[in-house]
């Protein structure tokens, strides 16, 4: 159900509770991407990937610089947060 994450812990003596706890923790981590997108957190990986696709010779700006630029531009025009 959640590809690309460490495998679901095998059912052990500690019982089904551990399995479910493990699943809950995993689903939390795998949903992080969704949550970050909803919150509008700057997505550096997507930017680098896209830049490489548009212009392979372009050099992406550093992660911290990218995050700072995105946040600055988000909070300097009306409409980022409403009443």
């Amino acid at each position, binding site marked *: 159900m959640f590809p690309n994450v460490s495998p679901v812990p095998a059912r052990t003596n500690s019982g089904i509770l551990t399995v479910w706890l493990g699943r809950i923790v995993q689903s*939390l981590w795998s949903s992080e991407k969704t949550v970050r997108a909803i*919150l509008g957190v700057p997505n550096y990986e997507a930017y680098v990937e896209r830049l490489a696709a548009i212009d392979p010779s372009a050099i992406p700006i550093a992660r911290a610089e990218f995050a700072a630029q995105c946040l600055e531009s988000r909070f300097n025009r009306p409409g980022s947060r409403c009443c």
Partner: protein
Amino acid sequence: MPRLLSALVWSAISIIGAGSFAWLALSRGEAVNAAWLLTAALCTYAVAYRFYSKFIAAKVFALDAERPTPAVRLNDGRDFVPTNRWIVFGHHFAAIAGPGPLVGPTLAAQFGYLPGALWIIVGVVIGGAVQDFVILASSTRRNGRSLGQMAKDEIGPVAGFTALVAVLGIMIVLISVLALVVVNALRASPWGTVTIGLTIPIAMLMGVYLRWIRPGRVLEASMVGIILLVFSLYAGRWVAEDPTLAPLFTLGGTTLAILVMLYGFAASVLPVWLLLAPRDYLSAFVKIGVVVALAVGIVVVLPPLQMPALTQFTDGSGPVFAGKVFPFAFITIACGSISGFHALVASGTTPKLLERETDARAVGYGAMLMESLVAVMALIAACVLTPGVYFAINAPAALLGPTATTAAQAIAGWGFTVTPAELQLLAQRVGEESLLSRTGGAPSLAVGMAYLFSSVLGGGGAMALWYHFAIMFEALFILTTLDAGTRVGRFMLQDLGRHLWEPFGRVSWYPAVVMSSAIFVAMWGHFLYQGVTDPLGGINSLWPLFGISNQLLAAVALCVGTTVIIKMGKARYSFVTLLPLSWLVVVTLTAGWQKIFSPDPKLGFLAHARFLEGAMESGGLPSGVKSMGDASTMIFNDRVDAAVAGFFMAAVLVILADSAREWLAVAAGRKVVRSSETPFETKAVQA
């Protein structure tokens, strides 16, 4: 036969909705259960979404899933990013939903539950959701252009400039009135003050964590933040119960107002990553959590509405704010029915994320229905209080007097019963010295929510924690709007100011940043200070100004929408935006006129100034006004408020006249219409 089945299901939903409305409207004498209100709302939303939004999507805009959106065409992985529809929905909802839909319905409950409920439910399906959807679709077809740019392109430079100045005006009034709500909630409340105060270092800690310790791990940082928020709730109680610490944090209105101004200034000059961004993340989490918790609380408890359908205050004599049910119910509730501010969000980030044009329906129309549901829930939470308790919390001190006994007498004079002992017991149960005259809506909503939550999850002792939890999250929302708004206001001021003096516009030159921030904080701070020192509670004068300015912006948005529709050659469908536009113009102009010129000093700004002048001449001052100097300040403030209301009315008329000129020119064939839409490109060309 699926067609027949669908017809049957939708007929049933319509009948259930209509039946619930009839029950709400016709019940008299007995308390109506909140379930009827929820059912009426949900059925109306379902039918409107299924039929009306589909009509707008298919007939008016002819949205086409094959037509590449700006996010697809201009994808740069940064501003323009094609995003899943439900993620955009969440993002858009988190951006539009703030304290507005919680506070407005609570204040409007003074008319009874019916006017607010009808306006929230009917207003959203015909007005608010249409506005958000139309602006989102228009902006998506124009590479994500902003409302101001569209006003300039579609209508003309006069409308564009008026929209720009109107946005600045609404920001000033919005921030000041929301700050006033926070100040009134925290006044003489050491628990609340400590809890809210601690949210600032918590956010900064998260900011440092996200920048230096674990960059980008927002979920982790937010979890830590939420745990610390719970801790701050207990820390507040600990301080409030400590006899030496409690007085240190028992602050008066003016001190709190100055602290809030300093906070706004700090948020505007500090780097975004340190304060604004982490607060924003935290607030979004808390927002979604609280909306879900409120829904669960209401559905589990299904409380009866203690407030009558209509109170005698529909005649304009209400203690919470002056003015008759028309036009003031429609001004008081903006967010939840129709909020012009949403047009800025719908023409901001959202159109740059839509993966398909057709997603605009769920995001634009759907998210606004969701906000309307939040407003309905806030109305329910306010109406679970008995009218006596509701008015004890929301009426100003000038009407209630200083003690529970005088308050109970005043409330009995309005025909509602509450005993002084009940009021004292309630204050004690929520952990406050007194709940009297905590105007602004937030405290009475918090009491209602504390009642709901403690009914579901815990006995009497839990009510104080739930009350302060509700106050904390309301203040968290409000301060998030306030800090982001101050920063945006600073940028807008710099942009305007650079025409006068070029260095003022340099956004990274520190003296300009400090100067423009200080000027903008002083602008909203003036109104905040005026509200805090007003013996009538401030909400009476500031909330209607906020409502008028927000509806003015909605009028701008609907003018833009109408122009877009007419220029698409769809003039026969322009009723979609003209219907809510004409209602808003009538409402804003009537309310503005009454606020300025009403001969009743409780309602009209100028009449109030004359009343004070008369009192000064005869040497006696009305109760609550301490000195002649205070009275002169109040007279000056009344005239400023009248001028602000006049400015908003003039702005409505200018935009409307400029738009009508354009519509008539197009209709008469005097103007050749050139589409400002980005031309259709097929995806094949793109790929």
